[in-house]
């Protein structure tokens, strides 16, 4: 016991001193150390150094789709690393896991999306899509098509290109110089998209990029028919349509890919996260058959784009195993069923908790919007802290005046665990209401 406490203290101190955390409050981390030091995960649960057990209501970063502690994924990695841990995919070198994974993703992806370019993650996938879109127009002899249009509240990653495409302004304001030629249309309106295209000049627009359901921006579901109209507009102006399925891919929304709800096929599709359920870093872009062919036909020399870890054998082997699990365990259908349960729970909470304004979910991506009291700070961060005390990890979104809690539990979640999540969330909301009530007295 004493030893455990000493170890915990040591880790806290080392973390504060040496571990510069991504997307964290730097000051509070340097002063107070990490919020959790996780030690193991099992199913939908995470355990930490101090003995706490919490339900991972975010699948960590929307990515641990098959849940924690899957030994078979570790075994797949071990087997591949023991045989061939790494080899290059540049200069047309290849390896079996990458080949098989590309073919598998082509089989799963909608329509004629058939050729896969691998990256290490979602940010790189987005940058790859934008760069290759622009490169395509160069090859096509339309060098003026350089602009990328994305949506307000969009989140596409933190590489320079992906940051530039991100519609959430604080991410862009974080640095003082970005990639040029990115523009934003209202995230719910195709008229606005048309207006921006017209304003910028259609002949200068390379591509439009959109998340089928916006994730980090607050789980926003576009109106019915939105994406059908987007496809029509892109076709009309000859603009490439890119979907960012980094969060929505691999079952998250109750279909294999999020765009399937809208029955349209993009020209390029970014993916990452759920492709390996986070067991290995991997992302990529799937290109339509025609685009892939055209790039082949038009290109003369070497494609000067690629990452060291593009086509990483171990990551690809893990992805293949992960997809096998998703298929064999029927996790896409489970996400749809459990998503309905989750929404039912949210609605029950909404009926009881006065601080809840509205709720929504598509598959296992859900949001609970809070009613911020006039003149007050958003409540969501307090609810998140309170929920952690009651054994639930979720995330707050406060960009653009939002006050929202978002959820994305692992796709393996069952009814009991959904109820647990709902009860813990309700308790946290109740505590916050109670605290507000007592402040008012």
């Amino acid at each position, binding site marked *: 016991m004493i030893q455990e406490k000493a170890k915990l203290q040591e880790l806290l101190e080392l973390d504060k001193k040496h571990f510069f955390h991504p997307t964290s409050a730097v000051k509070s981390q340097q002063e107070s150390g990490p919020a959790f030091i996780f030690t193991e995960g099992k199913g939908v649960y995470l355990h930490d150094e101090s003995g*706490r*057990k919490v*339900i991972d209501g975010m699948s960590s970063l929307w990515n641990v789709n098959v849940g924690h502690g899957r030994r078979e994924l570790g075994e797949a990695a071990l087997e591949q690393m023991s045989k061939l841990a790494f080899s290059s995919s540049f200069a047309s070198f290849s390896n079996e896991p990458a080949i098989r994974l590309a073919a598998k993703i082509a089989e799963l992806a909608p329509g004629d999306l058939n050729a896969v370019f691998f990256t290490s993650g979602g940010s790189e996938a987005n940058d790859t899509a934008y760069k290759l879109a622009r490169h395509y127009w160069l090859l096509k002899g339309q060098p003026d098509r350089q602009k990328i249009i994305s949506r307000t509240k969009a989140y596409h990653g933190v590489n320079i290109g992906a940051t530039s495409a991100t519609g959430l302004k604080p991410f862009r304001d974080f640095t003082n110089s970005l990639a040029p030629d990115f523009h934003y249309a209202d995230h719910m309106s195709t008229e606005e998209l048309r207006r921006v295209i017209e304003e910028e000049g259609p002949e200068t627009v390379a591509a439009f990029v959109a998340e089928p359901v916006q994730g980090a921006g607050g789980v926003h579901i576009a109106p019915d028919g939105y994406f059908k109209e987007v496809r029509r507009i892109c076709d009309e102006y000859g603009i490439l349509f890119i979907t960012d399925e980094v969060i929505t891919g691999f079952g998250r929304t109750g279909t294999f890919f999020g765009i399937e709800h809208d029955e349209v096929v993009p020209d390029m599709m970014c993916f990452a996260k759920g492709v390996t359920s986070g067991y290995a870093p991997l992302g990529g872009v799937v290109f339509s058959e025609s685009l892939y062919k055209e790039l082949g036909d038009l290109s003369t020399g070497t494609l000067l784009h690629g990452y060291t870890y593009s086509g990483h054998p171990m990551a690809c082997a893990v992805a293949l195993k992960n997809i096998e699990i998703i298929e064999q365990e029927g996790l896409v259908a489970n996400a749809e069923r459990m998503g309905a349960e989750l929404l039912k729970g949210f609605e*029950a*909470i909404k*009926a*009881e*908790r006065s601080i809840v304004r509205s709720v929504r979910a598509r598959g296992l991506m859900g949001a609970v919007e809070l009613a911020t009291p006039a003149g007050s700070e958003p409540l969501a961060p307090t609810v998140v802290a309170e929920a952690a*005390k*009651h*054994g*639930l990890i979720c995330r707050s979104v406060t960009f653009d005046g939002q006050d929202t809690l978002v959820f994305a539990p692992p796709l393996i979640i069952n*009814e*009991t*665990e*959904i*109820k*647990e*999540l*709902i*009860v*813990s969330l*309700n*308790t946290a909301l*109740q505590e916050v*209401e109670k605290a507000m009530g007592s402040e008012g007295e």
Partner: protein
Amino acid sequence: MMNAAAVDIIEVINPATGQIVGRLPKQGQKEAKQAADAAHNAFSEWSGRTAEERSVLLMNWHRLISQSEKELAKLMTKEQGKPLKEALGEIRYANSYISWYAEEGKRLYGQTIPASDRNKRIIVQKQPVGVVAAITPWNFPAAMITRKVAPALAAGCTVVVKPSEFTPLTAFKLAELAYEAGIPRDVLAVVAGDPAEIGDTWMKDGRIRKLSFTGSTGIGKLLMKKAADTMKKLSLELGGHAPFIVMPDADLDQAVEGLIASKYRNAGQTCICTNRVFVHESCAGAFTGKLAEAVSKLKVGNGLDAGTDIGPVINQAALEKVKAHVEDAVLKGALLLSGGREHGGQGTFFEPTVIAGATDDMLCMKEETFGPLAPVATFQTMDEVIRRANNTPYGLAAYLYTKNLSDAIRISEGLEYGIVGINDGLPSVSQAPFGGWKQSGLGREGGHYGLDEYVEVKYISMHL
């Protein structure tokens, strides 16, 4: 259930179907007095028999009940509604009191006490109290009778029983078997009908020396007042408001199982049913999630159908009460997780219900619900949960789930309750003293404590 048009008949209604399952002549003052006269006249002969002789008859009765257990269970399910497996369980449980007291009656030991004078001797004897009136409820139509009648008969008392007018059929059937076993009709009588008339007749009768009552605290208080005039000895098993405490280290699956056993048995209509669930805030989500899921799988239906877990509640008034408690809780901010509605159909069914986020201002946290509703509240510290658990006039049963021995002892000692189940949702057995503190009643039933309720103590001081 009485039919106003036919004043002389009790109609017994099956709460699962609304159908009449039995018609009985409605008895009153006249029959109550006749039974009391007979019991009074039979007392000296019955109390004069040896314990062994009474034991033989009680064991005969036990054997006959055992032989008819399926028939009795079915009859009980028809008039009371509980699932057949529970009815059969109750018959066996009821019968265990008969065999236990058939034995224990033989050990009604006295005492000798060293005197203060070398020429004196002090002997303490226990003698039967006299004629006993037993007034029993509908929730356990058999067990509440044998729990009183068996120790009374074993001690040498004669007994008049008034079962609930909702469930008299099981009572009369038990009496028939007793007569068949050789217990004289004057020694044990069942009178059913107008509860006020029968009760008042007995309460005014000075020859009835003892009242043993199981029922609501309200009626218990009324009977206690009425008993004052003739200074009857009293045993009162009254209402409860059982807390169910889950500590952070508890085995949650075991706790869920225990809660289901303690809460939903008999559709929540037992006086030791859990009424308030207190779960430590760190495991409230996990516990309540598991509970709600398990409860949503319980099958509601006619108790006679195979696979039924939850039968109807006894009548419309009972249904209205659960409904009102659920509505009040939801209005005050509780989160409905499963159930919450009438089940529909002919009978008085209510879905087994779990609510989260219960607070102490809700009716279900203040009053006995006597229905299938489990309100789950959270707590932070041990002292807090003991205080909240005790914050009620009731003190019958309490439940505690923990693996920590020190916590188990500290909390159980802090609870002002007559019965504490530690990791045990079903504590009732014939050899243990069942009974409540505070306004949950007086006296104990079961074990040697239960026999003492039917005797008077006499000490004899002899000068040589």
